């Protein structure tokens, strides 16, 4: 086995053990969530392993970890095998989504792919589990299982991953703090805090009613879905907003680099300079500046080209002969020669 594959396998299995233990713990100490699916912050682990080590390591962590967790929780190691695959996919897909940014997540684009990959991973994982159940296991019933199993599984994993994976990647310094990532992290943080606080406050207010009136549970799920949709919509809006600010800055940086290398054609700046805001003004000033530098350089080049040393040889010969043909010069030359010979 080549060393890369060995490392992936070992890391996958080591983190699988941790993930399995955490799964067992959350089965013992239930966190408030849906009736059957417990709130599982540990889902961030296979996702982070998939990003930090390798997507396949994330897959192994999710899959084997779920096997271990089910086994020691007494559910039977392979009874819910479709959920093992679901966990594997949740570890695999985020790593795949940011595979290009394996060494550093430093742009809004990379961060958007990361968060999108996490949500997609949860959707794909839960979707795969549902499809496999319908085909082979026949445990879920429709539509009853939707609010009690499927939706909570997706929502809790997606929200946990969405919040915790960036935190882990920040601690691991895989997310580099740039103007772009700082901005999107700040907006995402505000978004998460405000939506979760609202959702939490509402849940807290109606908790007693939820327990006594099961009819309200459905409404509660609708509220949860709306919250998550708001989170996703807000996140997408934030990405668009941040890119509207940072893309022109990146364009300006590229333009500055081009000028530094003597390239004064700045087609990339046209879109920015058309803006009516401060960045547009900056871009226009920059274009003018580059134009002036170009003009100055051309003038200079012209001067250098024109830097011809024109010597009128006829006049030179005439001036020289006027001096050297004098009696004084001849005497001087003789004397100079004499004391040089000395």
């Amino acid at each position, binding site marked *: 086995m080549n060393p890369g594959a060995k490392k992936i396998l070992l890391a996958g299995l080591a983190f699988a053990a941790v993930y399995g233990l955490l799964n067992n713990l959350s089965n013992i100490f239930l966190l408030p969530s849906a009736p059957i699916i417990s709130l599982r912050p540990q889902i961030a682990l296979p996702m982070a392993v998939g990003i930090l080590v390798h997507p396949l390591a994330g897959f192994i962590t999710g899959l084997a970890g779920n096997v271990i967790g089910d086994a020691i929780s007494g559910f039977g190691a392979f009874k819910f095998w479709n959920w093992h695959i679901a966990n594997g996919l949740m570890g695999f897909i985020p790593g795949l989504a940011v595979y290009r940014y394996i060494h550093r997540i430093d742009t809004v684009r990379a961060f958007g792919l990361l968060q999108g990959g996490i949500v997609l991973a949860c959707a794909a994982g839960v979707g795969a589990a549902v499809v496999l159940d319908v085909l082979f296991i026949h445990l879920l019933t429709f539509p009853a299982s939707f609010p009690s199993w499927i939706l909570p599984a997706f929502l809790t994993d997606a929200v946990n991953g969405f919040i915790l994976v960036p935190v882990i990647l920040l601690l691991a310094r895989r997310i580099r703090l740039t103007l772009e990532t700082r901005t999107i992290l700040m907006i995402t943080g505000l978004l998460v805090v405000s939506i979760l606080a609202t959702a939490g406050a509402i849940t807290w207010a109606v908790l007693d009613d939820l327990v006594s009136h099961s009819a309200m549970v459905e409404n509660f799920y609708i509220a949860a879905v709306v919250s998550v949709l708001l989170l996703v919509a807000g996140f997408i809006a934030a990405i668009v907003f941040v890119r509207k600010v940072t893309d022109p800055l990146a364009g300006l940086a590229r333009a500055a680099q081009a000028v530094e290398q003597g390239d004064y054609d700045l087609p990339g700046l046209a879109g920015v300079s058309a803006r009516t805001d401060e960045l547009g003004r900056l871009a226009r000033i920059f274009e003018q500046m580059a134009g002036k530098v170009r003009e100055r350089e051309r003038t*200079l080049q012209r*001067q*250098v080209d024109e*830097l*011809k*040393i*024109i*010597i*009128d*040889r006829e*006049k*030179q010969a005439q*001036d*020289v002969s006027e*001096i*050297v043909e004098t009696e*004084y*010069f001849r005497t*001087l*030359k003789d*004397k*100079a*020669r004499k*004391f*040089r010979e000395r």
Partner: protein
Amino acid sequence: MPKIIAIHSFRGGTGKSNTTANLACLLARQGRRVGVVDTDIQSPGIHVLFNLDPKDTPHTLNDFLWGKCDIGRAVYDVSRVLGPEEREKLFLIPSSIRTGDIARVLHYGYDINLLKEGYRKAIEQFALDYLFIDTHPGLNEETLMSIAIADILLILLRPDQQDYQGTAVTVEVSRQLEVPRMFLIVNKVPAALPGDALAAKVTAAYACDVAGVLPHADEMMALGSSGLFCLTHPDAVLSRILEDILRRITA
């Protein structure tokens, strides 16, 4: 073997005295014993750069040329410009600024053998390694003498057409005087002009080595003729180029 270095330019205002004084100071700083002669009898000026008050110079080059004094009495120790404690490193032979003295020398002239003998004695008496001759611009009889005496001739020019033409005459005349070594120094070059390209063009036009291209220095302008640039701004580009010039001409 002591060397006589004459610094000349076809036209005035090329920065001749400044360059001479700075080169002399740099050499003295390197531990050489250096003398400077002001042969610009018509318009002496280099003494100002060396903080030498004409009141303190009872004997000048003029007195020597008329046989009024020995050359040694016209030599003044100006090492103090290098530092308050410095002595016996840098010497100046000034010209008289008295109009009567100036007119008299110009009228009667002097003999090259006398001048040469004076330099020889000064070099011997003060154990000089280098003697710089600051000349009057143009090609009059006195400057031709300085060129004829020099072991090394430095011709300063600015990058403009009038200087180019005059320098061509100077270079040719100096060749006929069989100056052993001759270099051009382009001075007051606008900062925007590429020095290397200019040096190449000048070298080609005159078939003569260019010892250096000195940029037009604002700091030097600010100092005017009241200070020695290489001492006050030792790390400036200009000082570095002056050092390069010295390396080339003394090699």
